């Protein structure tokens, strides 16, 4: 039996009792926008612990092609919005997209966006990987990204949000500095690993277009959630800087009936000063450089001061 996620992996520290974060330029909110650019295999293996196309015997052209729409059409429409509002994204990327659809890779590199891994394919999950498999998996991710973009890989959101028990240790061992698979906070949080330093840069399933639009919610709800989230975090940031993540999927947000709602969100946020519109790579680096050690020290002292008698 390995480490338990709580309390072993993450030391407890309540949000109001941490080093005060001030983002670059004295910004209040670090905003990262994370389009998931994915490729789902037409005839995937089913041996990865989850059936990617559970609706019908494989293949499922409807579901496959619906997602492929994101790469053929939705991505390019979404790109217009990003360019209009000068958003620098953190792409959550299935690395094989660089090989199948290099035009997308070039559009990302041309804009100096950052890229975190989202695995190789969205139909190859991490469940059941051995440690050796997983180390090879990170090597593959690092090498593929470098080969096609010249960029160094710094973080990951597990493929289709799949994970393994030793993931944080093995990520850190491979030289990565952040994971986006933790939804536990409004700030970066140190994750305990065997070697090196790893932080979580929390992603969101609450503002996530996939979660909203595959339920009964419409564009107005998406806009309302993003604005309310922004307003609340902005007002709380007088205590300490906050992080806000807007996760997107081009096959959903890039639909003709939906893209204007993304524009509305950016229109609203662009009126505010004090927003550090940045990437997860930069948030992780900044946090590690300025706040990591202080955070860990406080967490250790909280553990000492708050133990049950006996």
């Amino acid at each position: 039996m390995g480490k338990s996620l709580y309390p072993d992996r993450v030391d407890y520290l309540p949000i109001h009792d941490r080093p005060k974060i001030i983002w670059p330029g004295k910004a209040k909110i670090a905003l990262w926008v994370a389009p998931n650019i994915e490729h789902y295999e037409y005839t995937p293996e089913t041996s990865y612990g989850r059936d990617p196309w559970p609706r019908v015997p494989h293949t499922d052209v409807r579901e496959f092609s619906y997602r492929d729409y994101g790469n053929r059409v939705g991505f390019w429409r979404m790109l217009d919005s990003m360019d209009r509002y000068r958003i620098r994204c953190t792409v959550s990327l299935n690395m094989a997209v660089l090989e199948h659809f290099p035009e997308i890779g070039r559009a990302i590199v041309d804009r100096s966006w950052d890229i975190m891994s989202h695995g190789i394919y969205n139909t190859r999950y991490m469940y059941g990987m051995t440690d050796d498999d997983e180390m090879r998996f990170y090597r593959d991710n690092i090498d593929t990204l470098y080969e096609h973009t010249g960029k160094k890989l710094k973080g990951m959101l597990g493929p289709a949000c799949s994970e393994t028990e030793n993931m944080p240790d093995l990520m850190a061992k491979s030289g990565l500095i952040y994971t986006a698979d933790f939804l536990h906070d409004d700030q970066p949080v140190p994750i305990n690993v065997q070697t090196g330093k790893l932080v979580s840069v929390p992603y969101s399933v609450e503002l996530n277009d996939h979660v909203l639009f595959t339920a009964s919610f419409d564009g107005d709800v998406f806009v309302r959630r993003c604005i309310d989230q922004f307003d609340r975090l902005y007002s709380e940031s007088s205590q300490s800087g906050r992080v806000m993540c807007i996760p997107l999927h081009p096959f959903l947000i890039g639909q003709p009936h939906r893209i204007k709602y993304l524009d509305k969100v950016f229109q609203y946020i662009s009126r505010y000063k004090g927003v550090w519109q940045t990437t997860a790579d930069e948030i992780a680096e900044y946090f590690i450089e300025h706040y990591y050690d202080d955070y860990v020290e406080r967490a250790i002292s909280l553990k000492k001061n708050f133990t049950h008698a006996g």
Partner: protein
Amino acid sequence: MPANRKYGMDHPHHSWSPLPSRTCLRWPNGANLAICIIINLEHEQWEIPPNSYVASNLAGGLSPRPWPDYMRITHREYGHRVGVFRVLAALEKANIPPTIAIDSATARMYPYLIKYCRDKGAEFIAHGTSVNSMVTSRMSYRTETKYIRETMDALIEFTGETPRGWLGPEFGESEHTPQILGELGFRYVCDWPNDEQPYMMTVPTGEISSLPIMLELDDVNAMWDRKITVKNYAKMLIDAFDRMYLDGLDNGRLLVLNLHPWLIGQPFRIGYLEKALAHVRSKKGVWAATGSEIIEWYREQS
């Protein structure tokens, strides 16, 4: 056992009692509505103990995924790290004392939260061992007694008080639960969402009342299971409050609201709770109290 076709309930745990047949209940100072807010502090275990039953609709993350499900566990942990402080501040502002349903895993691992909640005037009630270990009819009488006893002992150890109330994780009960709770000396149970007033349970040993939660107003039931927007959720809270307030003029009502900080404590949601609670506090004749205060008052009246 199938029901017998005769008058009254088809189980022995409480009697049938249509609301209009009851005598008038008044809360302290003649209040017509009592409000109680139960905040659930729940731990989702990394590895599920053998023979545990996990509710198929257990909320969080992206809905159930293969192990290890980081997203669901960390989504819920958000409540302990961030959300609960927003929720407690909202209650404090509305002058409503919190009733905290805490499981033994959380009580053991988060001494900071125990102290923080106690400083806010909270009453702790027992909430099982963890959210992914429910009470169900698959437990034997002995196993269930041991499970409830363990939860109770953990709360005594970690909060320093004997819990008077019980809420099963995910409202889980067997056919024996009220009896076991009575034997162990609990004063009230919150698993039965069927009324707008407290009522007595029928148990062989002890004296136990029901403190009924309004299930549709539970944040997880409304916004996770039924996908209601938070704006409509707040409207529903206010609508329910207004009607119960009015009906309470004839016979006092009880609004028990069950909240989960990982959900309602999200930045984009909390403002709507604050708005609804501000509405509640703008009215006279509302008594905000903990579960025990409500049950003890009710018992003195009846």
